[in-house]
């Protein structure tokens, strides 16, 4: 093949390549053609050879440039095509790993523990089955007190000695009998009472708090409750004490918090009063301290108890206590830390 022919054919091959792959084939073909031309050199005279070689080399270089240029164009085209073909709809939903959820009672329980742990409280979990001594007698509940009635307590033995605890206060006794003051404990857990309606469940959770030390006053109780209220609800939450009665505290107080929805102005949640009843509390009754071998003239203390469901219902706006025990996944999935 003559060089002139090769010049035409090579350019044609290069420009005809539609992809980098075709271009590669074209390149191989062109190289073969050049090889062919070069082989014709042996027919030339010794003098003619350098000039011919120079021409061919120049031509070869030009071809390589031509191929490189073509390659650049094709590569750019191919990248565009790749981009276009790999394009995704970025508004389609992401893929995620679905975590589960802790029960709202656990969440509230943990929040309460966090708040009180910061104030120096440790956590004690007493047994859910109890003796009447720990649940009633040691808590200064007289033998004829109505709460001992079969209507108000689940009993496990005919002699009414063993029962399902009706209050986490039973744990107070176990702690005070085993630990000397200073005592600061929280006792969360299941409690049981024979009630069953929209706001009562035969099983629910309480969180009991107990402080016993020297010189503890009602003012300390109020201070601690204000700290709790501001952390559990909002910093603007106010605490109101009003007289009440529990056998194991004297004085006993009912504790109301200013409504965190309306900030005390009055709304549906607080039934227009601006206050929400949240927990029962008081100064530990001297008889209870005596029953646990703590000298009531040396030490004083306070105790408070709240329903965890009640706090959860207030905090999350759950209106039927049954929701907590039906474990409908649509319910459980809503609660996040």
């Amino acid at each position: 093949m003559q060089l002139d022919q090769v010049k035409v054919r090579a350019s044609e091959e290069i420009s005809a390549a539609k992809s980098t792959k075709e271009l590669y084939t074209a390149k191989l073909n062109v190289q073969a053609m050049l090889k062919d031309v070069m082989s014709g050199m042996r027919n030339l005279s010794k003098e003619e050879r350098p000039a011919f070689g120079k021409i061919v080399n120049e031509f070869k270089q030009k071809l390589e440039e031509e191929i490189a240029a073509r390659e650049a164009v094709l590569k750019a085209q191919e990248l565009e095509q790749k981009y276009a073909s790999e394009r995704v709809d970025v508004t389609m939903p992401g893929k995620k790993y679905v975590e589960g959820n802790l029960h709202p009672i656990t969440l509230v329980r943990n929040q309460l523990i966090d708040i009180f742990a910061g104030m120096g409280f440790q956590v004690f979990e007493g047994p859910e089955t109890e003796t009447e001594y720990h649940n009633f007698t040691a808590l200064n509940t007289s033998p004829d007190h109505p709460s001992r009635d079969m209507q108000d307590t689940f009993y496990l033995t005919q002699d009414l000695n063993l029962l399902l605890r009706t209050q986490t206060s039973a744990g107070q006794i176990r702690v005070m009998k085993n630990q000397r003051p200073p005592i600061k404990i929280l006792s969360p857990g299941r409690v049981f009472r024979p009630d069953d309606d929209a706001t009562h469940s035969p099983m629910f959770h309480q969180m009991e708090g107990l402080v016993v030390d020297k010189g503890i006053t009602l003012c300390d109780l109020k201070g601690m409750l204000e700290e709790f209220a501001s952390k559990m609800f909002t910093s603007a939450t106010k605490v109101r004490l009003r007289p009440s009665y529990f056998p194991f505290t004297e004085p006993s107080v009912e504790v109301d918090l200013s409504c965190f929805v309306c900030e005390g102005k009055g709304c549906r949640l607080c039934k227009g009063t601006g206050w929400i009843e949240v927990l029962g509390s008081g100064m530990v009754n001297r008889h209870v301290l005596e029953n646990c071998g703590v000298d009531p003239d040396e030490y004083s203390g306070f105790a408070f108890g709240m329903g965890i469901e009640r706090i959860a219902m207030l905090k999350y706006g759950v209106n039927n206590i049954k929701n907590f025990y039906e474990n409908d996944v649509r319910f459980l999935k809503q609660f996040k830390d």
Partner: protein
Amino acid sequence: MKVPFSWLKDYVDIQCTAQELQDKLFSCGFEVEELTYLGKDVTGVYVGEITDIQKHPDADKLQVCQIYFGEQIGTVQICTAATNVFVGAKVPAALNGATVLHGEEIIKIKNGKLRGVTSNGMMCSGEELGINDDFYPGAEVYGILILDKDTPVGIDVRSVVGLDDYIFDIAVTANRPDCQCVLGIAREVAAVLHQPLKMPAFDYTMSEVNGQEADMKVTVSAPELCPRYIGHSVTDIQIGTSPAWLRRRLALSGIRSISNIVDITNFVLLEMGQPMHSFDMDMLSGREIVVRRAKAGEKITTLDEKEFTLTGENLVICDGDKPVALAGIMGGLNSEITENTKKVFFESAKFARDNIRKTSRALGQSSDSSARFERGVDAYTTEFGMARALHLVQQLDCGKVTGVHLDCNYADTTGKTMTASVQKINALLGITVPTDTIIDILQSLEFEVTLDKDGDTMSVKVPAYREDVDGYPDLAEEVIRMYGYEHITPTFLEKASVTSGGLNDEQKQMNKFKNVLRLQGYCEAMTYSFYSPKSFDLFNLPADAPERNAVKILNPLGEDLSILRTFLAPSMLDNVVRNLRRGNENGKLFEVANVYLPEALPLTDLPKEKKTLCLGAWGDVDFFDVKGAVESIADAFSLNLTFERGQKSFLHPGITAVIKLGTKEVGYIGELDPRLCHELAIERKVYLAELNYADLARKMGSGMKYEGIPKFPAVKRDLALLADEEVSCGEITQTILRAVKAVKAVELFDVYRGGQVPAGKKSMAFSVTFQAEPTAEKPLSGEAVDGFIRKILGNLKHNLNVEMRA
């Protein structure tokens, strides 16, 4: 406890409004649950005098009345169909815009015309005002309520008929039974308003009676159930209706007037909180009263004509030969006061509150009396209740109070005395209440206080009716509730020691445990600690299954909630079924809760409470998803859990594993038996697992140990094996692991059946990781690994007849 405002005003000079009093009561410990204005539905009804009556020109049954309402309103023309009106009658008339009652509804009155004649209002019946004869005599007559002729015209009728009044519905705490009456509340009101308490009259004079006409004998043979019994004979009884003031008081308290004698007993109950009873003396055989426990099988018919069969747990009041009252609950029909009663024996007693409660509950019979006794009636008031009743007999002039007064008293009624320190009271409160204020408050509540010369020690005599007070903290409470809780200023444990708080290791571990499951996609469930014994049958548990040894609740809410659970799966299955029935097709739940394992039945000691984990998953999951969750627990806590084929009566026999920690069985996992699915009508597969948390917790973290990082990378080889169907993945894995020490991991990545794999066989592909010892000086050579593989294949062939796939 319902207290009429007007009645309170008898004992205390109250200048504030009902709403203000509500706030005062609230602050001192008496929450008013409801404050009701009685006249709220009846508005714009005034007293008028009928000055003229004409026949209606176009209606036979209508009359046209001119009614004069005084100078301000003048005369108004009203038509009426009532026939009892007359010129000069004082009547209530609802004028334009007024509201009155029509049955349960409130209706509005407007000016209008009746058959063409102007009628600018409506004359009212008692019913339209919402009142009966006890509120105002004549309120129940058919027609218009005719008011007393001396009633001034133009005034709001509510003030005339007793509707201009409030009812306080007060919650009284269990320690204050003395406040279960109007006088008790009045005492608190007097103290909180700093006003004197005006006591009602208790005086009466006894008259001589001829011979033994009024004689009675009282024996209390069960003083533990009746600490005090006072009886008094009254003769010459004239049964009649009570005066209007007394009837209205009862009506305001929701009690219908019966007769003067019965009304007196009800009045004393409401006023003093002392339940009373009156016997027709002529009906009492043997002229005696015996207070005793009932004989088994003894019967009594109470005033409401219900018959009860009694036991020795019930206290009865008997005459010479039979029960005549169910003590403290209700009188007997046989000795009821009738219009023919001539002599009455009044009873004022204290009965033991728990006995009354138990009898009332057991028989399903209760009354205003039993409600008071259940809360507690003090032996001191027993005497005053009787005195008050006798005073009223004389005031109403309905009988002759005799000198026959019998008092069986086994109670101490002197009232306690104690000493208390002002400083200690203040130390408990944390504030300084001035000593004078403390003394004033206590005195206003009828405590007798003398302050010692030291200015600190007080001698205090507690009122006899205050059985709840027994120490200085009680006095501190009396002081602060009257002084005001708003004086309590918050402090933060000023004198207390600093303590360090927070969770202990076990408690932290539990939180981590729950979070591991949460991160595996499981939601935490909480279920009741009790379920139905039927669960054991549903779960096909054999008769001797240990799970059937469950603690029974003596007084459950129902059989379905009667057994303390011994394993959690039945509760979890309940959750799954409920979710599926509600259309929740997929879900994963876990619960960590106690099971209750009795040492012996019947229980002699508290059952063992063991924390247990239960998993429940359904829908788009399979056995290995749930197993993965269990394995994630093992990973998180470095536990070496192993799974072996097992059996459970409620699980699929081919898809059940027992879970072991070392050699100890700590749980199970499996698919719910399709038979149970069928029985429960569920179509999706359900997986259950249960693990003994307590057993796991003991080993948690103990398996964690640092190993040096090897110098040379590991070598991986894949093995395609042909095994008999019965050979398990676990067996092959164990064989490979045991064959060569350098094997660090064996992972199954594919199982294939069919095609070129012969029937009864399966092809299993494993990836095996080899690792030289951390101390090794050079990496594992290809030849060395080839040698390991030959050793492994040899053992597989020998032990399990497993071969390399051709």
